[in-house]
C-alpha cells in the first residue's frame, strides 16, 4: 500500500460512505414508519458509540466498559452548558472536551491495568457516573432528568434529525477509517497485537493508551450530544451502566477493529430486536441465540463475513478498507 494507493482507496471510501449516507437519508423516511424512523435515529447514535468503543477495544485491545459513562457525560454537559446560556456550538465543543478530559482522567490511573482488571475498573467508573447523575440532584435534577432542552430545535423531528445524524456518523466513520490506516492507527494496532513489540518500535504505550481513552470518550460525548438533539430530554436511566454491555455486544457481533463492524453491529442490535417484537416475550431470547451464532461461527463478526464475501467477488489485492480486511484475516 503505497501512499498514493492509500489515498486512492481512502477517496473511494469517502465517496462510498457519502453515497450510502445520502441514500439512507432519501430512502429511509420513505419506507419507514415514524416509529421505525426513530429506531433508525437511535441506531445511528449507537453506531457512534460503538465507533468510539472500537478505538479503544477494537483497535487498541483495551477492555473498557466505560462507554455509557462518556455518553452520559456528553449529554449532561451539553444540556447544562446550554442551560448556562452558551450557544449550541460552544456547548457541543465544551461537552466533547469535558468527555475527553474525563477520559484522560480515567486513562491515567488505569494505565497499569489490563484485561479483566481494566474491565472491572472502567465498569466501576460507569457505575459512579450513573450514581452521580441520579444523586447530584442540584445539577442533574436526579432521576427525573431534564426536559425541554432546546438543542437545535429538531427534537422529536425524526426525519430532519436523520440527516444530521447521518452527517455526523459518516464523518465519524471516515475519521476512524482514516486514522486506522495512518501512523496513529498502526501504532494503536501495534499496541493491541503486541505491546512489547510496539514499545520496541518506539511507541509510548502509556501515552497511546491515554489517547485511546480520550478519543473513545470524545466519540461517546458526541453521541451524548446527538441524543440530546434527537430527544430534547435526558434522564440517568439512558446512561445506565448495564447499557455498556449492549455496546460491547454490538462491537463484538459487528467485528472488533472494523468501522464497518460498528455499523453492522449497531444495526443488528438495535433494529433486529424491534423487528422481532411480534414474538412478544420471546423476542430477546431469539435475538440472544442469533448473537451466539454470529460470535461462534464468525469470530471476525458481521463485517468479517461481509468483507470475505465482497473480497471473493472482487479482484484480489484491491480492497477499500484495509483495517477491516486485515483484522478479519487475523481472526480467520
Amino acid at each position: 500500500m503505497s501512499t498514493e494507493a492509500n489515498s486512492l482507496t481512502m477517496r473511494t471510501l469517502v465517496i462510498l460512505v457519502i453515497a450510502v449516507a445520502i441514500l439512507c437519508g432519501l430512502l429511509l423516511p420513505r419506507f419507514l414508519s415514524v416509529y421505525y424512523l426513530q429506531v433508525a435515529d437511535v441506531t445511528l447514535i449507537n453506531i457512534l458509540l460503538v465507533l468510539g468503543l472500537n478505538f479503544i477495544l477494537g483497535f487498541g485491545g483495551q477492555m473498557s466498559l466505560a462507554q455509557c459513562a462518556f455518553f452520559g457525560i456528553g449529554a449532561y454537559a451539553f444540556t447544562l452548558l446550554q442551560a448556562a446560556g452558551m450557544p449550541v456550538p460552544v456547548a457541543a465543543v465544551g461537552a466533547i472536551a469535558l468527555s475527553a478530559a474525563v477520559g484522560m482522567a480515567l486513562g491515567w490511573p488505569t494505565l497499569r491495568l489490563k484485561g479483566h482488571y481494566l474491565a472491572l475498573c472502567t465498569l466501576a467508573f460507569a457505575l459512579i457516573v450513573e450514581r452521580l447523575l441520579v444523586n447530584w440532584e442540584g445539577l442533574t435534577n436526579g432521576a427525573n432528568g431534564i426536559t425541554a432542552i432546546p438543542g437545535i430545535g429538531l427534537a422529536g423531528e425524526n426525519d430532519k434529525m436523520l440527516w444530521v445524524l447521518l452527517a455526523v456518523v459518516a464523518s465519524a466513520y471516515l475519521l476512524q477509517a482514516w486514522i486506522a490506516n495512518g501512523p496513529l492507527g498502526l501504532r494503536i494496532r501495534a499496541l493491541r497485537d503486541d505491546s512489547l513489540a510496539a514499545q520496541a518500535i518506539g511507541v509510548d504505550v502509556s501515552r497511546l493508551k491515554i489517547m485511546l481513552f480520550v478519543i473513545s470518550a470524545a466519540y461517546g460525548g458526541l453521541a451524548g450530544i446527538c441524543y440530546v438533539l434527537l430527544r430534547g430530554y435526558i434522564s440517568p436511566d439512558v446512561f445506565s451502566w448495564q447499557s455498556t454491555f449492549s455496546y460491547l455486544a454490538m462491537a463484538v457481533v459487528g467485528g472488533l477493529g472494523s468501522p464497518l463492524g460498528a455499523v453492522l453491529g449497531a444495526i443488528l442490535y438495535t433494529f433486529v430486536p424491534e423487528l422481532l417484537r411480534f414474538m412478544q416475550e420471546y423476542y430477546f431470547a431469539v435475538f440472544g441465540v442469533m448473537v451466539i451464532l454470529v460470535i461462534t461461527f464468525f469470530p471476525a463478526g458481521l463485517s468479517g463475513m461481509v468483507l470475505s464475501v465482497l473480497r471473493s467477488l472482487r479482484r484480489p489485492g484491491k480492497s477499500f478498507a484495509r483495517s477491516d480486511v486485515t483484522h478479519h484475516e487475523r481472526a480467520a
Partner: protein
Amino acid sequence: MNALLELTGVTKRFGGLTALEGASLSVAQGTIHAVIGPNGSGKTTLFNIISGIYIPTEGEVRFAGAVVTSKPLHQLAAMGLARTFQNTRLFASMTVRQNVLAARHGRAHPWRFDQENARRVEEIIQFVGLADVADTSAASLPQGQRRLLEIAKALALEPRLVLLDEPHGGLNHAETARLIEVIRQIHARGMTILLIEHEMEVVMTLADRITVLNFGKVLAEGSPAEIQSNEAVIEAYLGRADREAELHTQIGRAAEGTGAPLLEVADLTVRYGDIEAVRKVSLNVGTGEFVALLGNNGAGKSSTLKAIARLAQASGSVRFAGQELTKEPTERLVGRGLALVPERRRLFGGLTVIENLKIGAYGRPHTELARLIEEMLELFPNLRRLSASLAFSLSGGEQQMLAIARALMSRPRLLLLDEPSLGLAPLLVEQVFSKLVEVNRQGTAILLVEQNARMALSVAHRGYVLSSGRIVAEGTAAEVARDPRLMGAYLGHGEAAE
C-alpha cells in the same frame, strides 16, 4: 576503541534469584558482538536490561555516551537502539508491509505516511528479501520469513545498535545462510550489532568479539578463536574434565546391559511446521543399558525424546521391546514400560511429595503402591523427610529426584530423561547422576538427554551426538568423549565436524 554500548557492574536479582551478577560489557562502534552462554546463564536478562525492559538492581548502562539505565524501551528505540525478540514478535493483524511501516510511525507526518517513508519501507522489504510477500498477513509467514521481518522492523527504525535475540532459532540451512548474509549487510551499512545466539557456527562466523556468560557472570571475553580455545568456556559448556575422572572413580560406570535390543529408533524425523528439528535419527538402547544423547541447545535432543515418548508428531519407526510404538497412544506407553522425566521436571507443584509419587503409579493396587513408595523413599532418602511437603517448595535438586522417583513408580524398563542437570549446581548434578547410575544398576535402561556432555559420558555406557537434528557421532562413552565432533557440536569447530 569507541564504545557505543557500555555496561558496568550490572546485577539483576529476582527475589532470591540472582540472574546477573556484576556483568560488564563493552560493545565497540561498528562491530558484531555476540553474547553466548549455556541455558539459564543470564543472556536474555542482559538483553532485557540493555533494552530497558528490566531495571538493573545495581550497575549502569550507557548508550552513545548517555546513561540509559532506567530509560524505557520506546525511548531507547527513539535514541537508535532497536531489538528483535527470541520468539518473533510481529504485529499479527498487519501485512508484512504494514509491520515495517508501523516501525516508521515516529518518522512520519502525524496523520499520514509520506512518499519518503513509503520508499524507505519498500527498500527495507526489498533488502531483507520479503518483497514477494509484502502484502500477505504477517501471521501467515513461515519461520524463516518471520525472522527476516522481525529484523526488517528493527531496521525501519534506522538504529545505531541492533540487538538480535537468537535470530537463528528454528531456521533451516538456506534460511540461516540468508540470515547471516542479511546480518553482514546490516553491519556493512555501519550498524553495530549485539547478538545472542546458540548456534555456534553462526556466532563463530559472524562475531568480531564474544562475551561468554555463565551463572550470571561474565566468564570470558575475546575473539572467536580465543573463546574456542578458552578452557573455562569449554568447561562451562561440556563440564569439567577433572570432575569427570573424580565422578568416575566415585560411582563408576553404568551397566552395559544384556545387549538385547530394547529400544530401536530408525529414521526418526520431527517437523514443527516447516522446521525440521530432527532429521532421520537412528539410535538403539539395549536392555539395561545407559545411553547418553548429547548436543548443544536446539540440536534436536528434546524433540527426539518427545518423539520416542509420542509427545511430538514424528515420522519413522520407534520399536520398543520388539513392538512398533508409533501407532500407540501416549498414555499406553507407560504400561509398556516406558517412562519420561520431562525437561524442567513438570511436577504437580500443589501436591505433596507422596501424592506426586502416587500419580506415577496411578491405578495400581493399594498394597503394591505402598511398597513402591517405600522403595522410592529408600532409594531417595531425602524425600522421606519431605514426604508431606508440597512439590513446589522443594529445592531444584530435590525436585529432580522426585521427578525421577515419580517416573520410576511405574516400574519402567526404559527411563527417558530430559536434561536432569538443568539449573542445578554442580554438586547436585553429581548427586543426580550417581542416583541414575544406581537406578540403572538395578536393571532399568536409561536414555539420557544432556547438555553437560562430560558428566553424562563419564557415567554412560554409550553416547550419541546430535547437531542440527542429525547424529554426527556415536560410539562407546569413551570414544565419544574423545571425538572432536563432540566439541564441534557444542562450540562450532565447523571444519572438524565435516
